[in-house]
């Protein structure tokens, strides 16, 4: 059976119209993995997720490994900035000094004071906004088992799931990020 040019054009038109119809009813989507538990790496996923929510982009963050600390209510107020092996520190610090006791606390204190100066919201503020604006936040079940973290240790509004649940969401996403 051969298809004439006219029929081919007709089929293409129908397919294109159907595609547009399906796409127009669908919200754009972003899927982020947050895998780091330092203060500096807690910001990017939360800033992007809350901004996405403000831009009508559906968003989910999957918190895994050290990233789980961001949603751990016992730990997320004490996230630190590493002073060691961080050549980008605004005050350059040789590793031998960065390794001294108390240097991580000092680097964290400095970072927090700089952030306060320019009114950067705190991690807690951003988490509250994320929950309010409907950002889907997922805690990694496997990490929780490894670290001995219980569901009660996590902030309210968290789902607990595994890799397949993240991938199911990410497979339909327009933007995927690993932080």
């Amino acid at each position, binding site marked *: 059976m051969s298809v004439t040019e006219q029929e081919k054009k007709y089929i293409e038109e129908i397919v294109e119209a159907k595609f547009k119809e399906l796409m127009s009813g669908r919200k754009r989507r972003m899927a982020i993995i947050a895998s780091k538990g330092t203060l500096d790496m807690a910001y990017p996923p939360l*800033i992007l997720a809350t901004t996405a929510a403000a*831009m009508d982009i559906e968003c989910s963050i999957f918190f895994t490994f050290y990233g789980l600390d961001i949603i751990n209510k016992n730990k997320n107020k004490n996230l630190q900035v590493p002073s060691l092996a961080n050549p980008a520190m605004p005050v350059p610090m040789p590793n031998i000094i960065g390794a001294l006791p108390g240097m991580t606390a000092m680097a964290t204190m400095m970072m927090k004071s700089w952030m306060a100066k320019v009114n950067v919201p705190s991690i807690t503020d951003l988490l509250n906004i994320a929950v309010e604006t409907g950002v889907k936040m997922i805690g990694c079940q496997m990490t929780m088992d490894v670290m001995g973290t219980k569901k009660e240790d996590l902030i309210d509004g968290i789902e607990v799931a595994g890799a397949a649940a993240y991938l199911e969401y990410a497979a339909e996403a327009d933007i995927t990020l690993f932080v």
Partner: protein
Amino acid sequence: MEKRGNKPDEVLDCRKLSCPVPVLKTKHAISKLEIGGILEVICTDPGSVKDIPAWAKQSGQELLEIVHEDSHYEFFIKKIK
């Protein structure tokens, strides 16, 4: 730049706030307006010059005007939907 005389229904002061707060507050303020209403957002964050237009484009609102003052920026946004 001379003002085109947009009369805002609401004014949102985001002075001294940094990314992403002005965008989040703008979204919140716009959601409370009636369709056709105009929101004025005042920002000092230099990043907002790119961020607010990007937000407006993505969320389907109309950015009427950006006024660059010496000390701040003013954005006039009309609620479309």
